[in-house]
């Protein structure tokens, strides 16, 4: 019997929502890590019981949590609960994210562009996104603020930067978006273990073809009016990128403004906003079985972060963009002014494809029919930061 497990990160804790394949009745557990900002939780494709979670706080900093039993119990990697300390230095390094500025591994890059155009020191703030390896449960990537990519190969105990990204040359020109200078998107290519895509606000999208040693910007075709050269190589506020695992050359992007598509692994991009009521937004995702079916949630504007006209509408394109239709059945169509953040949409791989998203108002909506109809799983959580889904069994 198939099951789905929805992992929800919120401003005040994490929640796990579980259902059978019908996706009608849900068990809700949580809050886990109550009171902490849970930016992201994601399960390992190689071991669904292995879940990584980013727990953070403006007061107490970054914590990495890991579950090895599907979210029933958690530990800070390297410091299992109740373990007696051994002599010597403290073992816990799971929240130690140290930028690599050594000459051996990268250029000693120490500053990036601040909001006012001056240079500003690189400072670790939090982990925005955790992307477990497709094949090894102990390997996981972390996208952090200030933007950098880290990797752990020991289940989250120790983290090491892949410094070629910051060191490739454009780093001093990267600047923070309104939410900070975050590396928020990590996509692993199932057909090529050496290829990874990442995206940064507000620097743009980047790709490596050699396992993270070297990187190049892939932003040709993006246009952003808020930078001096709208067609610049970097500086674009990419909000999210999605890819269908069976077609890794095709990428879909929700930029600050504009919905974009690339048919050549990011070498070039074309706008596919088409008839959307507004092409500002954060989330974008792809149907699990139909690589040309994509979903976005248009947001009114960059100064009004809520859905337009008081209507919560998911827009679906069955043509890979340009032609969009609103999905409204079961979603509030009046007096609704929520936002849906960049990591707060996910799809399961059941037939029919399930689609899930969470809102700044604390609702998590689910569709068990690819978006034709929706129902809330929960209505009153803290503001939702991220939603991921595991399809089990």
């Amino acid at each position: 019997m198939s099951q789905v497990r929805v992992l929800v990160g919120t401003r005040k804790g994490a929640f796990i929502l579980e259902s059978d394949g019908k996706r009608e009745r849900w068990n809700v557990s949580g809050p886990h890590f109550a009171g902490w900002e849970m930016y992201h939780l994601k399960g390992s494709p190689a071991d669904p019981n292995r879940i990584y979670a980013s727990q953070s706080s403006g007061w107490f900093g970054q914590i990495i949590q890991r579950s090895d039993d599907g979210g029933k119990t958690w530990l800070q990697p390297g410091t299992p609960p109740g373990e007696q300390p051994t002599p010597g230095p403290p073992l816990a390094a799971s929240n130690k994210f140290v930028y690599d500025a050594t000459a051996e591994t990268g250029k000693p890059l120490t500053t990036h562009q601040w909001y006012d155009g001056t240079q500003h020191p690189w400072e670790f703030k939090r982990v925005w996104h955790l992307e477990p390896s497709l094949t090894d449960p102990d390997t996981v990537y972390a996208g952090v603020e200030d933007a950098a990519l880290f990797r752990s190969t020991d289940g989250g105990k120790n983290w090491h930067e892949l410094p070629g990204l910051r060191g490739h040359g454009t780093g001093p020109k990267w600047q923070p978006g309104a939410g900070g200078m975050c590396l928020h998107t990590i996509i692993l290519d199932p057909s090529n273990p050496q290829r990874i895509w990442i995206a940064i606000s507000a620097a743009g999208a980047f790709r490596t073809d050699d396992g993270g040693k070297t990187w190049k910007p892939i932003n040709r075709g993006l246009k952003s009016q808020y930078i001096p050269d709208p067609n610049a190589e970097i500086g674009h506020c990419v909000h999210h990128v999605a890819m269908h695992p069976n077609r890794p050359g095709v990428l879909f992007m929700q930029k600050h403004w504009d919905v974009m598509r690339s048919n050549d692994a990011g070498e070039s991009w074309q706008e596919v906003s088409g008839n959307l009521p507004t092409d500002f937004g954060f989330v974008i995702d792809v149907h699990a079985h139909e690589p040309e079916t994509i979903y976005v949630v248009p947001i009114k504007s960059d100064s009004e972060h809520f859905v337009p006209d008081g209507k919560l509408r998911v827009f679906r394109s069955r043509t890979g963009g340009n032609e969009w239709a609103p999905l409204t059945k079961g979603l509030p169509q009046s007096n609704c002014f929520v936002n849906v953040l960049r990591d707060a949409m996910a799809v399961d791989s059941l037939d029919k494809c399930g689609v899930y998203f969470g809102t700044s108002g604390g609702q998590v909506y689910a569709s068990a029919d690819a978006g034709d109809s929706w129902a809330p799983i929960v209505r009153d959580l803290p503001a939702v930061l991220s939603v991921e889904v595991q399809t089990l069994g």
Partner: protein
Amino acid sequence: MIRVILPQHLRTLAQVRGDVEIEVNGQATQGSVLDALEARYPMLRGTIRDQITQQRRAFLRFFACEQDLSHEPPDAPLPDAVASGKEPFIVIGAIAGG
């Protein structure tokens, strides 16, 4: 024996209730107390002071004996009442919500 009072979130992380009691080798200072605390509860590394710079996190304060010790040097001796365990060393979050 030195008593340390942690904010609720850090008690949860360290899986302790109430005050924490720790032994400090040598003179009791902010630095030696935090060293001992992190050695006993390694899950607190990085939550009170930066892992690299060892500087106090910006939104945390250190109080003891009705004094704000947040800006004292890390190697300054703590009050005798703290060193003897009569008064606790308090780690407290800045009062700004949370």
